[in-house]
């Protein structure tokens, strides 16, 4: 706090030397420029930083208290991205909306996001791992929805995404006023309920034995936290890290009692955001162009990794034993599915769109289209299968049905590397993003193994590494989105999993990689049958660390292959294994095979739909699949 204030004072003094602050208003009234800038730019900017920092810290503290989850904060719970998506959509469909309307829409979006996260993790008693995974998954879905809106309604590169990056720059006091007004109801409601919320320090049983209507209380608290986060998103956009870091600092300093932690973290939040913003100002013109939100998001990821070193409280209940409905008849199902996929491929290879609609092409058209059509079908299918295999291995290995390669962070790592390469390397170097992607995947893998080593390579905690990578990815893409640079578009279509540029070579390579992966996975099937039994059992059966390492390596390789073709966010790695399991595939061999088939079918279908729906424009296949994946996730975990 002291540092933040000193830096602010330093910046103010450097910008406005010798300004008599008392006479400020009078001078500004007379239109003296330095006074006007101080009064209408510098001071409101400080005020906005303090307000938003406070709000985010309070919101984070509340989320962490009620969910008993040190990782909970507006951005990991997808509350911020829900609000952001709602506001982006409203900006496109109702341009010229006033700030008050934006507030209402942001609150609705944030509330919906919160409700979805709760719904998805309800059955698992809102355990931290379940909540975090659901939040992160939804975060990605909202992010990809927002990207599609921005991509298809781009206004000549004056990008909507700039707004979302949390620039604190001000030209008057209006945003400050709106923020204060919007946060006030939540603060007023928080004051009397803070005492009651301390009940969440107790174990659930103890709390309910006190007779308190703990559920209702929890919902009120979550509502307040969501409200605060939404108001801030509507006011200035997305700001990561503060809601995570401020409560953490307060805890580290040993603040006892909820009331104390709220106060202290509010103080830290305000100081942190002010410090971040003033640092950017002090760093000079180039840094000054960066919004504070993008900057803080970059700071947030290391803290997440730090927090993940320790186990989360309340371990996830072991995944329920799979429904043993049909143990026989696998062969019949698999055959049926293969026929279905054959049909999908046949249709996808032939059906063509033109201005008039969909139809079957004549021979000449077919011959022209085919050289373009087959690589994308093969690429999409193989990519989908690879991701599904990776997901199946991961779900069996961790015994967690919510696990997916997306959550492992490999996909995000791949994309971070590729994005950085795209911008850091000269424009003509076409292989740059691909090499960067491989380097990114390797880096992500290294981090996963180093974290996994501490917790035995099987813990659910490993899955949460992906949250860290996801937040780096959103920070990086947030930073890139600031450059209204046309190269972004190619990056964006790729991040969304566009299959249209897949070359014949790349398609065959993906296919070969996936086939090799399938063989390797089938060879490990015995391990996978034993691993879900739990650490002790599998250790006694002689499954060493090295087996887990092998499986992890295989998973990483498969997801890297896939995310370079179908993008990092498709959720096929979540959906397909889950569906295969729901269809009664108990044994690892059958589970793996069916998952691969389903993943293949889903992606080919998504590819065809993306090609046909808004001709001549193409919706990336990965994006379409993720739009299906989000709702599937919610549905699947509601009805488990």
């Amino acid at each position, binding site marked *: 706090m002291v540092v933040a204030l000193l830096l602010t004072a330093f910046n103010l003094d450097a910008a406005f030397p010798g300004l008599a602050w008392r006479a400020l208003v009078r001078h500004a009234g007379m239109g003296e*420029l330095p006074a006007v800038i101080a009064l209408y*730019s510098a001071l409101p900017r400080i005020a906005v930083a303090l307000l938003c920092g406070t709000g985010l810290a309070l919101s984070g503290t509340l989320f962490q208290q009620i969910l008993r989850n040190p990782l909970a904060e507006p951005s990991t719970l997808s509350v911020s991205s829900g609000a952001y998506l709602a506001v982006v959509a409203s900006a496109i469909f109702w341009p010229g909306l006033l700030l008050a309307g934006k507030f209402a829409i942001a609150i609705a979006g944030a509330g919906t996001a919160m409700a979805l996260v709760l719904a998805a993790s309800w059955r698992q008693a809102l355990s931290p791992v379940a909540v975090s995974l659901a939040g992160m998954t939804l975060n990605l879905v909202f992010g990809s929805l927002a990207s599609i809106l921005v991509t298809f309604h781009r206004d000549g590169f004056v990008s909507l995404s700039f707004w979302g990056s949390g620039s604190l720059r001000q030209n008057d006091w209006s945003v400050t006023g709106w923020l204060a007004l919007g946060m006030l109801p939540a603060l007023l409601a928080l004051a009397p309920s803070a005492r009651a919320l301390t009940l969440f320090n107790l174990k659930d049983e103890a709390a309910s034995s006190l007779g308190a209507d703990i559920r209702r209380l929890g919902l009120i608290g979550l509502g307040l936290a969501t409200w605060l986060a939404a108001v801030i998103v509507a006011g200035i956009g997305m700001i990561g890290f503060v809601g995570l870091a401020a409560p953490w600092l307060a805890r580290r300093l040993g603040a006892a009692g909820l009331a104390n932690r709220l106060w202290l973290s509010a103080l830290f939040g305000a100081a942190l955001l002010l410090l971040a913003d003033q640092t950017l100002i002090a760093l000079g013109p180039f840094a000054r162009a960066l919004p504070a939100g993008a900057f803080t998001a970059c700071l947030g990821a290391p803290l997440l990794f730090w927090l993940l070193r320790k186990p989360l409280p309340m371990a996830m209940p072991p995944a329920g034993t799979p429904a043993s409905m049909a143990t026989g008849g696998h062969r019949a199902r698999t055959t049926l599915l293969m026929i279905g996929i054959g049909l999908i491929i046949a249709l996808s290879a032939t059906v063509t769109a033109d201005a008039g609609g969909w139809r079957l092409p004549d021979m000449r*058209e077919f011959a022209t289209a085919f050289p373009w059509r087959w690589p994308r079908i093969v690429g999409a299918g193989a990519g989908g299968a690879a991701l599904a295999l990776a997901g199946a291995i991961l779900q069996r290995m961790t015994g967690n049905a919510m696990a997916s390669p997306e959550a492992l962070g490999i996909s995000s790592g791949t994309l971070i590397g590729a994005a950085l390469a795209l911008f850091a390397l000269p424009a003509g170097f076409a292989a740059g993003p691909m090499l960067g992607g491989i380097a990114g995947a390797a880096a992500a893998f290294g981090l996963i193994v180093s974290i996994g080593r501490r917790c035995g390579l099987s813990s659910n905690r490993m899955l949460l590494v992906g949250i860290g990578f996801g937040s780096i990815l959103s920070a990086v893409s947030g930073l890139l989105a600031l450059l209204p640079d046309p190269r972004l578009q190619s990056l964006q279509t790729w991040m969304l999993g566009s299959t249209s540029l897949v070359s014949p070579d790349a398609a065959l390579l993906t296919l070969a990689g996936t086939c090799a992966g399938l063989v390797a996975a089938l060879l490990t099937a015995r391990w996978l049958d034993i691993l879900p039994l739990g650490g002790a059992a599998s250790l006694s059966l002689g499954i060493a660390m090295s087996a887990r390492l092998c499986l992890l390596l295989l998973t990483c390789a498969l997801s890297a292959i896939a995310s370079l073709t179908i993008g990092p966010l498709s959720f096929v790695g979540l959906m397909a294994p889950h569906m295969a399991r729901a269809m009664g595939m108990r044994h690892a061999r059958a589970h793996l095979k069916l998952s691969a088939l389903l993943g293949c079918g889903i992606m080919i279908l998504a590819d065809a739909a993306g090609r046909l729906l808004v001709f001549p424009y193409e919706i990336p296949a990965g994006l379409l699949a993720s739009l299906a994946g989000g709702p599937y996730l919610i549905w699947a975990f509601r009805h488990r």
Partner: protein
Amino acid sequence: MSQAAPAGLRNIARRQFLSGAAAAMALRPHPAKAAGPRLVSLSWAVSETLYAMGVAPVAAAETALYDSVVRQPETPASTVDIGLQGAPNLEYLAQLSPDIVIIQSWQDNLRPALERCADVETVDIYTGAGDAFAHARDAARKLGTIAAMPARADGLVLQCDARLEMLRRRLRPGANTACLLVQMIDETNLTVFTAGSLFDGALTRLGLQNAWPGPPSLLWGGAVVGLEQLAEHPDATLILIDSPGLAPDETLTGSPLWQALPPVRAGRSHRLASLWGFGGLPTALRFAEALTNAIA
């Protein structure tokens, strides 16, 4: 491409007549039957340059958005939409069997795929270095060669030069003015067009100076700044170019900070109708016309 191109050009000529400026692109409608190669343009800067030369490509990227953002010259009726600039519909492209697909250097990632169905030509306008206006001029000539109509490209470039010279003479009395060229990103953030931008090139050719000293941080020659940074140049003439796609908004210009900027208080601020800062030669000339009309 039979009647479409001339109709589009007539339309432009009428608009410019109405706006009081002499026709910027005083191109007479060209005889439309031109047996040039079948072209596809995958970027708006290339599209507008081709249209201005009276060349109708068989397909162009994002034509609907082009017609609402760049606006003129209009997309010829015979030119079909081929999808996003960064992600064209390749199958459809192949069906159209073009001879040459024209991209800009920032689209080089598309090249391997495009080369599978046509020759690919790259024009450089925005490279992050050098003078985008000079590049746009060279690009026009290169496009003329590609379209097998070098005479029309020469005509376009010569008329553009002549028109700029006329505008420069009109400005002569008040010349030596340093301008800040800004465009809104949102209510508080602006793009300032720096050296290396298309508008900077047009500005200096009009005999004016760019008041912004800093280097570009964006590919198209711009940097993101706030109003407080504009205050550091009190003697400049402030030119606010409306953002294509953003509704003209009074939040920025109504703010006390904007009102206190020395150029605004001295009446040296002007507002230009929306222009897309990432265009080719026709956009540069439209900017020069609008600027001259504003400050002359």
